[in-house]
């Protein structure tokens, strides 16, 4: 009994922290006067969730139960998921999709607990990246990288500019694919204290999801960028729970000592190769941009749903079941569009009223909205 109470207390503390981080993230992405989540490109997440959230939450619940029942090992989970980025975003969805799914409170708590357990496989004790660090590699994994990389000088202005452009374009590309949930395609981790300096690793994956046919012409499906910064830079490299990029406003560019790249597991040894990848990437971004601009709201919501269900794929692959969205999702988008749109417009109106309210007041409203226990 005592054990159960302690476990519940721990879960409640974790949920408190999660809700706090969600609210901070929403408010941190906007200025005080803006209505939150309404300005997200190209579709406010809340709008999409209204159409697919319930079915998605049930699907997530199903796979978490299957993982539990089948006694899937931590090792297998780590191998299939590879990164914590998807799990942390599933936790965010516990604040809306899961919360409003109609599942029982017990089921919701089971899901959150299970997601935190999976997250701890990657982040061990530092689940919330509270010190600005996201340490997911152990010594062994770090040793492998040291042996197989080719280092470029970060102090060379031209090379520094080239890698900066490549990094920013990759980041923007994941935003093109996964919109506000771009960490579904990337994971930044570190900084690891190394002999040569502070190591930051930026991994990009799922860059050619079938959801987006335009992505199929990209010349690579993933890659890793290893950055060694001058010793002492680490405190300025702030990463956060949702892995949305470097959170410090301080400049790091001039402290980059060297960098290395692997693209589709191949070590890159020539700057020309980086330029070619960049050129291809820019082309795909251009094409993808045109595709997204041509979509109407319903088509956008359909894509939104598709990539959120696609994000469940690694978990479903683990239990060898199908991850695709059920028919109900399409029905919601195309048959119940007007009905749900009325609800969305009402929500947006309420949100607009928040703009300009004192910060504390906005925090209070959003906490209420995103707390899965309420």
């Amino acid at each position, binding site marked *: 009994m005592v054990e159960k109470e302690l476990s519940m207390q721990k879960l409640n503390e974790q949920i408190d922290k999660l809700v706090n981080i969600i609210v901070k993230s929403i*408010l941190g992405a906007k200025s005080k006067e803006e209505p939150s989540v309404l300005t997200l490109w190209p579709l406010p997440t809340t709008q999409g969730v209204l159409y697919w959230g319930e079915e998605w939450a049930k699907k997530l619940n199903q796979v978490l139960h299957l993982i539990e029942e089948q006694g899937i090992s931590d090792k297998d989970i780590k191998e299939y998921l590879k990164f914590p980025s998807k799990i942390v975003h599933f936790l965010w969805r516990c604040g809306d999709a899961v919360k409003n799914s109609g599942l029982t409170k017990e089921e919701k708590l089971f899901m959150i607990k299970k997601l935190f357990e999976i997250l701890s496989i990657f982040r061990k004790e530092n689940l919330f990246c509270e010190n600005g660090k996201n340490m997911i590699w152990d010594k062994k994994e770090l040793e492998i990288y040291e042996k197989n990389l080719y280092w470029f000088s970060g102090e060379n202005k031209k090379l520094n500019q080239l890698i900066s*452009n490549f990094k920013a374009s990759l980041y923007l590309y994941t935003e093109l694919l996964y919109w506000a949930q771009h960490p579904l395609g990337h994971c930044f981790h570190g900084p690891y204290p190394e002999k040569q300096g502070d190591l930051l690793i930026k991994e990009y994956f799922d860059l050619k999801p079938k959801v987006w046919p335009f992505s199929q012409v990209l010349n690579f499906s993933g890659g890793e960028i290893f950055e060694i910064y001058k010793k002492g830079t680490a405190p300025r490299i702030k990463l956060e729970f949702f892995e949305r990029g470097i959170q410090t406003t301080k400049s790091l560019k001039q402290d980059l000592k060297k960098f290395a790249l692997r693209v589709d597991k191949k070590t890159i040894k020539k700057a020309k190769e980086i330029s070619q990848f960049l050129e291809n990437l820019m082309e795909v971004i251009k094409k993808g941009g045109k595709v997204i601009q041509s979509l109407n709201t319903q088509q956008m919501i359909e894509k939104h749903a598709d990539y959120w269900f696609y994000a469940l794929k690694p978990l479903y692959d683990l239990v060898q079941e199908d991850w695709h969205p059920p028919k109900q999702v399409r029905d919601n988008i195309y048959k119940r569009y007007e009905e749900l749109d009325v609800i969305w417009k009402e929500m947006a109106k309420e949100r607009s009223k928040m703009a300009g309210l004192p910060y504390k007041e906005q925090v209070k409203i959003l906490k209420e909205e995103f707390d899965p226990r309420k």
Partner: protein
Amino acid sequence: MKKPKQKIILKGIPASVGIVKGKIRIILDPSQCSKMKEGDILVTEMTNPLFTPAIVKASGIVVDLGGVLSHSAVVARELGIPAVVGTGKATKVLKDNMLITIDGRKGIIYAKTK
């Protein structure tokens, strides 16, 4: 030597440090990205991936919307260029070809005065 006086024309949220001088390029629609020249300062409402061709040429970014955790801010930090976000009215106050200085640490946009 006496420092030239600088007039503050706009304030916003500091999003990526650094000071840069440059010519303003206001881009309200991604179709205008070709207007952007290497070293220009990109001014828009809010960046999104459709602005990539302009973003990679920018020496600084100023946007109307967003906070310190917004995508414009994170992208500027990836590029290592100064950025000021959440100005509220940059696209209205600033004009194409204007020469300005942006201070990404203080979140201030200056115009040179005689």
